[in-house]
């Protein structure tokens, strides 16, 4: 009898631990939305989302500069990180011999483990000084003086590209490995070269996994805070939309929250939570995209 009672208690306890995750997600959603919604209701959703001015001290809360800043750095990160990550994954699966792979795989793991503040510090010195030299040297005539500090969208994009590499490499690696051997053998048997087989057969066959990898990379880049704060310059202005914008200091959604939460008054805090809502919505949209993709693949 005692044993049966113990069994029941254990089962209840385990069930409670299991639904902790569900409660956490609900609580996170509820609290962020509850705290942030009043700003949208008070100033109007379009004014907050598309307002070009962020000036909390005079009660103007336009998030648009941060939305543009976030999209901008994420785009740069993906444009650099995705092809590079995919390339490394292909290299590891198809070309590298075991000894080299044994060197690269742990290196990728370590890259994933380095704290974001360390990436930030590295970016602040190693990457920023190169960008600053470029801005003050050959590009000095084309850039306004406040674009010559080295703190820029491009600097942040480069650091983020390195930071999302592990995500993209690991997931496209799994996708490439999951392609049935017969595809490759069939293609090679037809006399097609190894490289042609890779880009005409293997990569297309692993397409949905590779896209998932890229989407998760985007998620990581969107959500990164510390490394971005330390290199992007944090000016809440919309970057110019031509090539000089690459060198503009800007601010991301995440940076906006982290920088100002420490001293924000009540309404200002709500505006920062509203920034959090925008970030949250970005992530939800991305996650649904991944779920859709996985489902479509499952049906196939």
């Amino acid at each position: 009898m005692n044993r049966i009672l113990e069994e029941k208690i254990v089962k209840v306890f385990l069930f409670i631990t299991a639904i902790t995750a569900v409660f956490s997600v609900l609580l996170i959603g509820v609290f962020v939305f509850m705290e942030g919604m009043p700003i949208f209701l008070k100033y109007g959703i379009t004014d907050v989302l598309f307002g070009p001015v962020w000036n909390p001290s005079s009660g103007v809360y336009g998030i648009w500069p941060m939305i543009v800043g976030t999209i901008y750095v994420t785009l740069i990160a993906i444009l650099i990180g995705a092809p590079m990550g995919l390339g490394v994954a292909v290299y590891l699966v198809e070309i590298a011999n075991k000894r080299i792979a044994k060197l690269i795989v742990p290196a990728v793991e370590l890259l994933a483990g380095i704290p974001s503040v360390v990436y930030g510090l590295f970016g602040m010195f190693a990457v920023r000084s190169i960008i600053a030299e470029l801005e003050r040297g050959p590009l000095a005539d084309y850039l306004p003086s406040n674009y010559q500090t080295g703190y820029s969208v491009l600097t942040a994009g480069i650091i983020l590209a390195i930071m999302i590499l592990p995500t993209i490499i690991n997931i496209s690696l799994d996708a490439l490995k999951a392609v049935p051997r017969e595809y490759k053998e069939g293609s090679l048997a037809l006399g097609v070269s190894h490289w042609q087989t890779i880009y005409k057969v293997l990569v297309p066959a692993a397409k949905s996994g590779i896209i998932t990898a890229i989407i998760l990379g985007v998620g990581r880049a969107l959500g990164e805070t510390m490394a971005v704060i330390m290199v992007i310059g944090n000016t809440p202005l919309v970057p110019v939309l031509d090539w000089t914008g690459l060198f503009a200091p800007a601010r991301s959604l995440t940076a906006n929250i982290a920088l100002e939460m420490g001293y924000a008054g009540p309404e200002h805090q709500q505006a920062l939570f509203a920034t959090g809502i925008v970030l949250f919505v970005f992530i939800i949209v991305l996650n649904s995209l991944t779920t859709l993709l996985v489902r479509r693949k499952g049906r196939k």
Partner: protein
Amino acid sequence: MNNVARNQKIAFTCLSVLGLLTVCILIYIIGYIVSQGLHMISWEFLTTKPRKMGSEGGIYPAIVGTVYLVLTTMIIATPIGVGAAIYLNEYTSRGKITSMIRFATEALAGIPSIVFGLFGFAFFVILLKPVTGGWSILSASLTGVTMVLPTIVRTAEEALKAVPDSLREGSLALGTTKWQTIKGLILPTAMPGIITGIILSIGRVVGETAAFLLTLGGTILIPQSLFDGSRTLSLHLYMVAMETGAMDVAFGTAAVLIVLILVINITASWFFRRLVKRFS
């Protein structure tokens, strides 16, 4: 045909360069931080308090803060995460509740850390202030628990899945209850995998900054209890670099962090290899 061979050669060369570039980037980052920061590290740096807003002196309070925060977070997160994994793997078959729990775990893994920070701030720091003491190690730990939960659940579940069913059946056939089987047989067998997950989570807590920026308070004093504010090494690095502008202290702290992360990663992969060995 000649063309095809040439293309392949060019493509393969490019891909090898990318592979090696990844290793070079890692070596460059670690080398850069260590070369700038290693000279700062001394017994005194590790064991004394900071002076002048952290621009001089050591990082002792940040080390204490990191240890407290990691311990509290893991003590709370481990039973919850492992319990959830046991429930998912041993007690239910596929159902609506299970898929809801899985979905929530996936969703938690995708939420940006600053959003965890916002939540922790609104819920633990403000709303539960009488219980948590406001900005405190406890508030930050509870926030940290929600962040590391997916990692622990996932790795523990993988480890449990790897335990062959014949073990469960054999034990149950001897008349033991389900929980006795799990406690006495399944958990010990899956232990290296569970420990891998715990170590990875420790790495996550050590490296996390954004969420703790909003929940830990960031005071430079040595915490006396769980209800005191504190700062971790990562948070110290950020504050010293961005607010105080003491770059040599920042690099010294970064070097300590790099060493810590190296140790954590090597330990995790050692346990992982033991798990693989156990089932092959």
